């Protein structure tokens, strides 16, 4: 078979190709000008699982659905959760107290679902019903336990009744629930909400509309120009999913992405903040990370865990870990060791809180006293034929937790415990944590602005089967937490919380490892970047790209 050298035929084809191509480039480049253009590409490590608010606790999902669904009212920039003065109207244009335990919301008549229907009080009632339904099994159910009923007085008036008076009544009523469209969700059986198609293509009433979701790659939102609280300036929002924060930083520096929530490691912060086109925004970190023990047998919550059901063993393991050194390795100076299940944002942060000390000698002695000795000299302690061996569940999307997992592996090895790692993707990680299929899990929580909703959700009886993955229950802690929630002023609350956390620390249900500082990065052309620490994208609709700073990217049509 002879070979033809490149000849005129190929040359002709090339010319034709170029001509066709240049014709095609006359396609729309987009002619958007002014203050309402702008395309922002958000680089996120990890992908949302489902965009139906009551059923997911992933913060990546929350960041997206917060643009699609509205709350009755939202927290102000001060972060004050007591009373109702510092809250901003959203779905409710005004409210009043009708007695000490009755709260009446008047909905804004301009609010519309994206299919045109009006938002009514019936939706509010439906939402409360869904969030508290055991079939939906929402992780946020425990935060709503002090609300006794929600009713609709008329189509634009919703009435909340509480069981008792306490300082954060208003916060509980408004913060957790995103109002859902009853007319679209009523027909879906509650136990199938987790797999409902609505969760992959939601219809909301917020400043942004859902456009598209390419699994594993990206998710797109478009601004609703008729949004009654003010048209969002950024016209398109694209969330790009990346495998980890290092790639996020590289994309930012290379100009392939515009914003990210949290740069994570000191390396990334250095690289991003040195890039000329990026601006860095440090803010109070709302996250804390910990190694949580499963106090029940994985897959069978009725039986205690063969290892971690033993309080003394847990205490020994906590004492074996040098949390400060591990923190320095992973976060450098950009984080602190939390004294309990709280983030740097929490106003109850008290460095004087009593915790278990780091003392590996004592940990070793304690283990020996419990009967865990290395009888076969393989470096791993055992007792009655059972090895002191367990597995740590880690998500592959978090480079810092993967580092922690390996650091912890070594710390536990030195006291004779054998640790293996289960590294899975974020979605599977979340599912396994939720269903209790783990020995120990490296979990990170983005906390609420107040401990009264986040701590009970995760560490009390009310959180069992929902966010209390380790199934830790201590009635004494629950009582103290309840009293702290009901405390009438900050000073008393702080005192009560400290006592409660000290009780929890003695029980050692987890090793509280890190509470990172948060540093966000955004392209300099984006102005008015306001970041509310508890939910960094809450004010996305107020961000702007001024008309004179638009780039080709901003003007491009879909």
């Amino acid at each position, binding site marked *: *078979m*002879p*070979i033809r050298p490149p000849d005129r035929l190929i040359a002709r084809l090339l010319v034709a190709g170029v001509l066709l*191509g*240049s014709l*095609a*480039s*006359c*396609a*729309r*480049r987009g002619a958007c000008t002014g203050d309402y253009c702008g*395309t922002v*590409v958000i680089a996120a490590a990890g992908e949302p699982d489902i965009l139906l608010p009551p059923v997911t606790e992933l913060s990546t999902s929350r960041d997206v659905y917060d643009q699609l669904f509205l709350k009755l009212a939202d927290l102000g920039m001060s972060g004050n959760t007591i009373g109702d003065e510092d809250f901003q109207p959203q779905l409710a244009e005004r409210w009043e107290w009708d007695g000490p335990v009755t709260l009446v919301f008047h909905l804004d008549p301009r609010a519309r679902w994206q299919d045109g229907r009006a938002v009514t009080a019936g939706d509010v009632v439906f939402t409360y019903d869904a969030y508290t339904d055991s079939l939906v099994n929402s992780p946020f159910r425990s935060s709503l336990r002090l609300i006794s009923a929600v009713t609709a007085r008329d189509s634009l008036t919703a009435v909340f009744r509480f069981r008792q008076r306490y300082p954060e009544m208003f916060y509980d009523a408004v913060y957790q629930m995103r109002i859902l469209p009853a007319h679209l969700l009523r027909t879906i059986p509650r136990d199938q909400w987790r*797999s409902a*198609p609505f969760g*992959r293509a939601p219809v909301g009433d917020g400043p942004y509309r859902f456009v598209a979701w*390419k*699994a*594993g*790659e*990206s998710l797109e939102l478009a601004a609703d120009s008729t949004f009654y609280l003010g048209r969002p300036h950024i016209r*398109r929002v*694209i969330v*790009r999913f*990346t*495998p980890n924060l290092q*790639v996020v930083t*590289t*994309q930012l*520096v*290379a100009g*392939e992405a515009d914003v990210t929530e949290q740069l994570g490691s000191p390396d990334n912060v250095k690289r991003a903040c040195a890039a000329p086109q990026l601006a860095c925004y440090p803010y109070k970190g709302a996250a804390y990370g910990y190694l949580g023990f499963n106090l029940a047998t*994985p*897959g069978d919550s009725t039986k205690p865990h063969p290892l971690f059901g033993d309080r003394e063993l847990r205490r020994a393991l906590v004492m074996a870990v040098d949390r400060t050194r591990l923190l320095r390795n992973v976060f450098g100076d950009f984080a602190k060791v939390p004294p309990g299940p709280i983030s740097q944002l929490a106003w109850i942060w008290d460095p004087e809180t009593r915790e278990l000390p780091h003392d590996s000698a004592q940990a070793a002695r304690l283990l020996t006293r419990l009967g865990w000795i290395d009888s076969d000299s393989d470096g791993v302690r055992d007792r009655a034929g059972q090895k002191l061996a367990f597995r740590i569940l880690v998500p*592959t999307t978090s480079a810092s937790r993967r580092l922690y997992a390996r650091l912890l592996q070594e710390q536990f090895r030195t006291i004779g415990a054998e640790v293996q790692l289960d590294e*899975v*993707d974020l*979605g*599977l990680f979340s*599912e*396994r944590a939720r269903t209790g*299929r783990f020995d120990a899990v490296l979990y990170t929580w983005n906390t609420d602005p107040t401990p009264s909703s986040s701590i009970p959700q995760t560490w009390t009886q009310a959180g069992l089967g929902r966010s209390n993955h380790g199934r830790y229950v201590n009635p004494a802690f629950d009582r103290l937490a309840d009293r702290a929630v009901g405390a009438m002023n900050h000073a008393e609350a702080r005192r009560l919380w400290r006592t409660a956390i000290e009780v929890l620390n003695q029980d050692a249900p987890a090793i509280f490892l890190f509470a990172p500082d948060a540093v966000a990065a955004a392209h300099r052309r984006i102005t008015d970047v306001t970041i509310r620490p508890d939910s960094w994208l809450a004010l996305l609709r107020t961000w702007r790209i001024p008309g004179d700073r638009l780039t*080709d*990217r901003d003007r*491009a049509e*879909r």
Partner: protein
Amino acid sequence: MSAWIVRRLAAAIAIVLAAVTLTFFLLHLAGGSPCGQRDVQSVAPEVCARLRAQFGLDRPIWEQYGKYLWAVLHGDLGQSFWQRRPVIAALGDAMPNTLVLAGTALLIDFTLGLALGVYQAARARRFGDIALGNAALFVNSMPTFWLGLVLLLVFGQWLHLVPVGGTHDPVLCARLDSLHCVGDRLWHLALPALTLGLVGAAATARYQRAAMLEVIAQDFVRTARAKGLRERRVLLVHALRNALLPSITLFGLAFPFLVTGAVLVEWVFAWPGMGWLAVMAIGQRDYPVVTATALVASGMVTVGNLLADVVYAAADPRIRVRGA
């Protein structure tokens, strides 16, 4: 000739069916295994329940197999729990990307490899040949994903010459609607295709060099030289034509390499093709997607071999006469 093609086609179909049977066997084995227990070689807990539901393990095995075969032949490869949509849809999105990557890599592989092989044969045993030969050996011995990481580090992170992942700019070029976007896609394609292509080219060059040397030693080349033809014409027209034949078999061998190499290279470059899909699905223990990619990969390899055989037969009349 046509009878031979039909036979080869039948053989190819049989191979794919055998691959389907093997995956069924594995799935059935897993479904019957102990589920989610500690310290035992057990099946992932979330996988267990789904397998049992999908296969109805109380039915006789022939019935299960029949159902499975029927489903696969109809393109029903199951539901992905990670993506919450049919596997075939996920594959449909991913396949074009892999084909583009593999096709470009194949192009680079063969153009570079043939050129290198011919050059090395022309400079046999002199410095150019030895240096290139060792370089090719080194490149062929590298883990492809490591080469990808290094290239990405140098050209993507340090020099900012190429983008660091994906197939296209998600904002400007979500649709291929302009020459600029074609360029954007090519730019994203460059490094992953180069990574795969380079390693393949190294192997191709070695084969081609050997084949050329063998042909050059033959009589007809000496005759051409004796006739006074220019060396370049001798090499490129007479020798190469005949030395191409072994390279066609190499074309068939390249397919398994590309399909396998694509898994890691796509992962490193975040190129959303079939290999990337398989690795993402592994992280979610999403077995329907993983088994589907295994089947598709087998299909691609089989088709590649079939194509290579057909082309080889068309090129070499001796084969046609002899029969397979």
